[in-house]
C-alpha cells in the first residue's frame, strides 16, 4: 500500500504547477522540495543505519556556498603569501563540485567519528556544523560573512537543440528540484535494496551479529555518510541558485531540526517516510499562514507534530503499513469466516 506513495506523489507534483499560478505557493513548493531532498538524505543515515547526524545542515550549507562561489568566482589570500583566484564558472560545474566536496566532507566526518559511533557521531556532526557556520561568518574575504553572497546566477542547463538554458522562472526551478528529488529517491531505493543496503540493515539491527558475518561497520557507515552528505550538498546547490543570495544563516540549526522532524514524523527507515513528512511539514506553515496569527501558527505546528508522534510513534508511513496489514488480515479472515470450525470438525470426523 505504501509502495504507491512515491509514484502517486510524482504524478501529483509533476502535474500540480499546470493548475498553479500563485508564485508564493510555487516558491513554497520549491523550498519544500529542497528540504525534502535533505530529509531523504538524512533518512539514509538516521533511518537506515540508525546514526543521527544533527549537523546535517552543514552539508546543505557547504553545498550552497561551494556552488555559489564556483559560479561567482573569488579572490582570497592565504597564509605564506599564497593567493587563490577563481574567475567564476558555470553553475552546473558548481552543482557537481558541491556534490563532490560535501561528499568528501561526509567521508571525513564518517572516518573521524564512526569508529565510536552513536552519541559521538551526533556530537561531531553538531560541532562540525557550528564550526562551518563560524567559518562562513568570519572568512569575509571568501564568503562576504554576514553581508551575504549576492547575485548568484540561476542554474544553467545545456538542453539539446536549445543550447544553454538559464532556469530563471519558478516553474523551471520547480521541475529541476523535482528531477533531483526523483533521482535521489531512486538512488536511495536502489542502495537500500542492494547488498550494501543489507549490510546497513544488519548493522542497525544487530551489530555484533553483523560483524560476525564479515560486515565492515566503519566502511559501511562511512559510505552511507558520504552519499548522504553529497545528496544534502546537491540540495544546497539547488537552493543557492534558486534563492540567489546566501548568508551564514543557511547553517542554522533549525534547518537540521526541520529535517529531523520530516524524517521522524514520516517514518524513518522507510523510503516514502521523508517524502510524506517533508511535504507535510514543508507545506504546513503555508497552510496555516492565511488562517491564523503568526504566534498561533507555530503552536499548532508543534501540536500537530506531538499528535503525530503520540499516535504514530514510528511515523506516518509505518502506521499506514500496519493499517494496511490489518485490513489485509481482516479481509483474509472475512473470506474464510468458518476457518476455525472446519479445522476442528476435520480433527473429529
Amino acid at each position: 500500500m505504501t509502495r504507491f506513495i512515491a509514484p502517486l506523489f510524482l504524478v501529483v507534483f509533476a502535474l500540480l504547477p499546470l493548475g498553479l499560478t500563485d508564485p508564493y505557493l510555487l516558491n513554497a513548493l520549491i523550498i519544500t522540495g529542497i528540504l525534502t531532498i535533505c530529509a531523504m538524505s538524512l533518512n539514509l543515515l538516521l533511518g537506515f543505519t540508525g546514526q543521527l547526524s544533527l549537523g546535517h545542515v552543514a552539508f546543505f550549507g557547504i553545498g550552497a556556498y561551494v556552488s555559489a562561489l564556483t559560479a561567482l568566482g573569488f579572490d582570497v589570500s592565504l597564509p605564506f603569501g599564497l593567493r587563490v583566484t577563481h574567475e567564476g564558472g558555470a553553475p552546473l560545474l558548481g552543482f557537481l563540485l558541491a556534490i563532490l566536496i560535501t561528499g568528501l566532507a561526509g567521508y571525513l566526518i564518517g572516518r573521524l567519528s564512526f569508529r565510536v559511533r552513536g552519541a559521538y557521531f551526533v556530537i561531531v556532526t553538531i560541532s562540525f556544523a557550528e564550526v562551518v557556520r563560524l567559518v562562513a561568518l568570519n572568512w569575509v574575504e571568501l564568503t562576504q560573512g554576514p553581508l551575504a553572497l549576492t547575485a548568484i546566477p540561476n542554474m544553467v542547463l545545456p538542453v539539446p537543440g536549445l543550447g544553454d538554458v538559464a532556469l530563471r522562472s519558478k516553474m523551471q526551478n520547480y521541475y529541476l528540484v523535482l528531477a533531483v528529488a526523483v533521482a535521489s529517491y531512486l538512488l536511495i531505493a536502489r542502495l537500500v535494496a542492494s547488498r550494501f543496503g543489507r549490510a546497513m540493515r544488519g548493522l542497525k539491527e544487530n551489530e555484533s551479529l553483523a560483524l560476525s558475518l564479515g560486515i565492515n561497520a566503519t566502511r559501511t557507515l562511512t559510505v552511507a555518510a558520504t552519499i548522504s552528505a553529497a545528496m544534502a550538498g546537491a540540495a544546497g546547490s539547488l537552493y543557492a541558485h534558486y534563492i540567489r543570495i546566501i548568508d551564514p544563516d543557511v547553517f542554522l540549526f533549525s534547518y537540521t531540526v526541520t529535517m529531523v522532524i520530516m524524517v521522524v514524523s514520516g517514518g524513518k527507515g522507510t523510503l516514502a517516510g521523508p517524502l510524506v513528512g517533508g511535504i507535510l511539514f514543508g507545506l504546513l506553515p503555508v497552510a496555516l499562514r492565511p488562517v491564523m496569527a503568526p504566534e498561533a501558527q507555530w503552536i499548532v505546528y508543534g501540536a500537530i507534530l506531538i499528535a503525530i508522534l503520540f499516535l504514530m510513534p514510528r511515523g506516518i508511513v509505518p502506521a499506514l503499513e500496519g493499517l494496511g496489514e490489518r485490513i489485509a488480515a481482516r479481509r483474509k479472515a472475512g473470506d474464510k469466516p468458518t476457518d476455525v470450525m472446519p479445522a476442528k470438525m476435520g480433527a473429529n470426523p
Partner: protein
Amino acid sequence: MSTTRGNAILNVEHVGMKFGGLTAIADLHFDVQESEILSLIGPNGAGKTTAFNIMTGFLKPTQGRVLFRGRDLSQTRPNEIARLGLARTFQRTSVFADDTVRDNVLIGLHRHGDDTRAAALLDRLFPTPAARRAENAVRERADAIIDMVGLTARAGDKAGSLSYGEQRLVGFALALAVEPKMLLLDEPVSGMNASETQGFVRLIRKVRDEGVTILLVEHDMPMVMEVSDRIVCLNYGRLIAEGPPEAIRTDPKVIEAYLGKSAAKLEQREVAHA
C-alpha cells in the same frame, strides 16, 4: 608466520585473558585439526565463551595468540576474521529479528560473489542484466542454505516470530552464509527439544562432511559425547583434559570438575539401554 603443525586449522597458543584482577582464561593451549568436530566443555564460568570471543576477535587476549590457518588473529577485527573463513554463532542474540528468515540469510550473503570492479558499482546503482543475474544467484544460494537447515516453510516469516530452536537454526544458517572453513558454535542446541537436537546433530555432521571444521561449546552432554571427535575440557580458565569422548567421560578430573552428575546419569542410561 607458517607455524601450522600437522593439519591444524586453528592453534590456540598459550592464551590468557584477564579482566582487571579476574583471570578468565589462563594459559589455554590446544589445536583444532582440519575437518574435525571438537567440543569445548566445562562448567559455567569456566571461560568457554571468553575463549570463543577471543578466537573470533571480539576480545583481544592479554597473553598468547590465536592462529587461524597460520595467520595471527590478534590484530584482526571480527569482520575480517569472518572474511578469512572463521564464522561463529552466538549464545543469545543470533538473528535479525525484524527481518524474514530469507532476508536474514541474504544479509549474511552480503558479500556473495564479492566484486570491486567499477562495473559492479554501476550494477549496484542501475538494474543492469548483470545485476539481476547476480541478485538471482544470491537468492538461489539463500534458498539452498535455508533448505539445508530445514526452514524452507518459514522462509517468509519474521525471524523474531520463530521458536527459540528455529531461531538457533537461523543463526546457524547465517554462519553458513559466510561460507566458512571453520564454524564456532556457542551452545547451538540450548533451547531445542530432543528431536530438534537430533536434527541439529545430523546437520552439523553434514556440514563437517562438506569439509567445514567445527568447534562446539555445549552443555548438552549426551549431544557432545555423540557428535564430537575430540573434547577439550576447561575449568576455572584452565585446560584440565583433552581427548576423545570415551577418555573424557572416564577422566577423573573431568568428572570431579563438571561431569559428576551427568556422567553418572549417562552411565545409568547406558546400563538401562543394555
